[in-house]
């Protein structure tokens, strides 16, 4: 790891007065037009990405709030946070349990449907995908805007469900006026519970998720068409930046899996409203079939969450190691392989659900195959860093966290993919810890890394490196505290989704709760660094990291049409064309002679 030349990172100067906002008169996509309407009806992919960012981060805050609430509830073995163990009455206990059920359900549903699935594709994908392609916009800009409004509409359904639940719990009389609110089925809406419970607004919530599915489909459709049709001259499939390969593979999943969720939720709504009984055993239905339906979408959906994160890792690792990505084609193809294998393993969620032994065995076997492309990626990232000229920048720190968490999450997945151990671990905190490591640890930290990586490009501002790093480190420590211990609790038999638990699990839960608070504190710091950077951040150079994908070839922030002059496609991971000048100017392009010299010096005739 040689850190000789050139100097590291843009400097951190927390309190230095910034150049005023707006980019010094330069016209860019943010200040090109003004007024609320110019945002609401925009078809500019970057503005849509920003609107998504505001919405999705709000949803994240909401989901996080529920996480904090339910971890607080779990501080004591008996429910005590809300409802009141002091009364000890059955009614109070039922209230507390009901509250807990609603809290974990809405935490899961909001985080999955409103945050993780749209986070990377809809925010960062929208932001950089067309620019990386040298295109002026996505293929269908209006559909892109429509996708955002679908997201908003679906989100409103969740907020509606949520507010009803909260108000009902304070004023139970409201239930008679406007029906039950809240959601207590778990984010999976398993039948027959979801079709028989009278206690929650399943129809409204599923309809919300149904609409969110359209949002996801439209984003995926746009990305597929854009990558196919709008690549510039000279950019073949294997000159595509790896983030785009990841988004492309994600889009395939969004296209092929999401419609099945749509029909599943429609069937569920039909069960609730019309009395159709395809999934309801009381009506001669088949409850296991529901799980097939649900996981045919929702397992691939896990890869909707993680694949773009893996794409960000590939970008950041290469750029900040100043080294061409190792095994480009393997990483690219492994994205597609994960997408494909993701469709063949949904049954591993159903090992104990009454699925037949043969099906169990088949799904278990295929599940292990997923490890292959995942490991290919991980090894290639490590190999990329090896002997690289690594700069410990903020995005890079977050990416290191991501790789670590992804490895732990992936390896513990093997325990769950294995039939015999899964019987023991099924529905315990082991599972909770596993999928938080993968979905939340990996995806969230990669998302944050991506935001820090592209923040200068998105807003034309630099953030405070010290506080950004600190927020990440605190969040990482909090995450490990909160979830690592859950592996142990789970392997000792602590089942998930219970508001009360035997006393000897108290220590585990209290450590976990402390971890959740710590992580929350870290996330608040992270969000504050963004807000402060937006207000007072220093002006960012066009290319602060020396990346060579096309988004670094335009100004920060880019103009509405993305480029002032037509970009030419290059090898995305060839860094010989850039030299570092200063924190203010970042990296600038070398002349061809300088470039040749640099190549000679490096000895890599890239």
């Amino acid at each position, binding site marked *: 790891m040689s850190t000789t030349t050139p100097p590291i990172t843009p400097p951190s100067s927390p309190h230095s007065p910034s150049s005023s906002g707006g980019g010094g008169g330069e016209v860019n996509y943010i200040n090109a037009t003004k007024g609320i309407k110019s945002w609401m009806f925009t078809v500019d992919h970057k503005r849509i990405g920003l609107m998504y960012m505001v919405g999705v981060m709000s949803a994240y805050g909401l989901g996080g709030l529920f996480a904090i609430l339910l971890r607080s509830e779990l501080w004591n073995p008996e429910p005590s946070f809300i409802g009141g163990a002091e009364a000890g009455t059955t009614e109070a206990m039922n209230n507390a349990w009901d509250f807990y059920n609603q809290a974990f359900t809405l935490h899961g549903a909001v985080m999955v449907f409103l945050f993780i699935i749209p986070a990377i594709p809809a925010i960062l994908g929208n932001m950089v995908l067309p620019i990386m392609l040298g295109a002026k916009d996505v293929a269908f800009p209006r559909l892109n805007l429509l996708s955002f409004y679908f997201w908003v509409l679906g989100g409103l359904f969740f907020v509606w469900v949520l507010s009803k639940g909260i108000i009902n719990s304070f004023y139970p009389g409201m239930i008679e006026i406007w029906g039950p609110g809240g959601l207590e089925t778990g984010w999976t809406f398993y039948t027959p519970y979801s079709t028989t419970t009278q206690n929650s607004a399943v129809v409204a919530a599923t309809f919300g998720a149904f609409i969110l599915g359209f949002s996801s489909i439209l984003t995926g459709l746009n990305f597929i*068409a854009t990558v196919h049709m709008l690549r510039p001259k000279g950019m073949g499939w294997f000159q595509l930046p790896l983030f785009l390969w990841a988004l492309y593979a994600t889009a395939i999943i969004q296209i092929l899996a999401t419609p*099945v969720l749509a029909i599943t939720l429609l069937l569920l709504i039909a069960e609730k*409203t019309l009395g159709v009984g395809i999934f309801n055993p009381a009506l001669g239905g088949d409850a296991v079939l529901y799980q097939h339906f649900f996981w045919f979408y929702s397992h691939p959906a896990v890869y909707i969450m993680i694949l773009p994160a893996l794409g960000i890792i590939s970008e950041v690792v290469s750029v900040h190691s100043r080294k061409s990505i190792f095994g480009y084609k393997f990483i690219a193809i492994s994205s597609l392989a994960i997408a494909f294998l993701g469709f063949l393993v949904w049954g591993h969620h159903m090992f104990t659900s009454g699925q037949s032994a043969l099906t169990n065995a088949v799904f278990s076997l295929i599940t292990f195959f997923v490890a292959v492309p995942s490991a290919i990626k991980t090894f290639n990232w490590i190999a990329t860093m090896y002997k690289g000229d690594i700069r410990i920048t903020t995005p890079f720190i977050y990416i290191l966290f991501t790789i670590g968490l992804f490895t732990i999450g992936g390896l513990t997945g093997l325990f769950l993919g294995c039939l015999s151990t899964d019987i023991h671990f099924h529905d315990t905190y082991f599972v909770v810890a596993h999928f938080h490591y993968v979905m939340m640890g990996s995806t969230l930290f990669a998302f944050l890394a991506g935001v820090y990586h592209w923040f200068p490009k998105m807003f034309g501002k630099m953030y405070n490196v010290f506080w950004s790093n600190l927020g990440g480190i605190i969040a990482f420590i909090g995450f490990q505290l909160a979830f690592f211990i859950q592996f142990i609790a789970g392997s000792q038999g602590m089942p998930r989704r219970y508001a009360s638990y035997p006393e000897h699990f108290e220590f585990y839960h209290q450590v976990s709760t402390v971890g959740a608070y710590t992580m929350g504190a870290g996330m608040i710091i992270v969000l504050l660094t963004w807000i402060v950077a937006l207000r007072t951040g220093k002006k960012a150079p066009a290319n602060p990291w020396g990346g060579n994908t096309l988004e670094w070839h335009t100004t920060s922030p880019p103009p509405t049409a993305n480029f002032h002059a037509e970009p030419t496609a290059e090898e995305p991971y060839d860094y010989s064309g850039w030299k570092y000048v200063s924190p203010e100017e970042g990296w600038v392009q070398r002349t061809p002679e300088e470039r040749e010299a640099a190549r000679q010096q490096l000895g890599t005739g890239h």
Partner: protein
Amino acid sequence: MTQVTDSHTDDHTGHAGHDDHEHHGPPHLAHHFETPEQQLSSAKLGMWVFLATEILMFGGLFCAYSVWRGNHPEVFAYAHTALNKDFGFINTIFLITSSFTMAWAVRTAQLGRTKATFILMGLTLLGGCGFLVVKTFEYKAKWDHHLFVGDLNEHHPDYVAPAEAAHGEADGDHGAVDEHATIEQTAADHGAADHGTSDASVEVAGETTGETAGEIVGGAERTSIALAPDGPAGVVADWMVAPVIAGETADAGHADDHAADGTDEHGAHGEAAADAGHADAHGGGHGDGHSVSKEIVPLKDRQKIHQFFQIYFLMTGLHTFHVLVGMGVIAWLMFCKVPKGIFGPGYYTPIDLVGLYWHLVDLIWIFLFPLLYLIH
């Protein structure tokens, strides 16, 4: 197609428009595309990807269908006799014809023959209307015979039979449905004959005590045995024949029903249908005996009969919804866009795309028809 413009001339002007787009693109070219061809290809790719999502969405229902039919083939073979094969056939013809006129409309749009495009899209719309009208009759018949979706289906465990008062009303209905009698009669003939409501099975069915069967299928309200004593083969429990909607014009069964228990209105349909079916089965067409197990619908499947109707209504309902959407878009293009004469060799994307969508709707029906109406 009264007015046939000279397509060749149109073609060539169109091409000219194409070729000199260097800097001042054609009016429909969005700023982020380089050429109209790139834009059209993108739009088509987008549409195909959207169609893939539609296929996957229907795929869920086909999966439910396969799982139910795969595990309970007798239920489907039996319950589908309630569907009117002729209506299904007519609708298939409607959709294929409208698909043809749509494909033709795309052709005329490509050639810039505005008037022909307008007329052909109108014909397509008419085909859609015809489909909807037939579908309405079908749904109406199911409604009348308590074979509707959800717990409005008399085989549904939560089904609540209409009160006594409904009796006269229902009787009145019989008159109203009379004009369909011939069509439905044939359907019943086919259905019952093909699916072996033949003596062998009927006898076996007779072994099952009517009481049990009635309870299982109909819930508390349906405890009556509801026999059909004058059927050629003797005893038929009501759950076996109730879905056959055809026979309410036949009166013998009706009378019997009233004699037997006097309250179960649905039994009447059943028996009447049974009569028709049996008569036919004996008159000719039976004797195939393939795949007809000893019991037409084994005990384990009896509470699953309503599942067929749920799947039928969900599949055709979702499909009909797609027909409606397609018709809406076609009407919009036809009345708001086509008359402006904007479509020609250089720009026909919307017509092409709605055509693709309409063909997909047709395509799904092509599978639905044999799978729902022609079960064997």
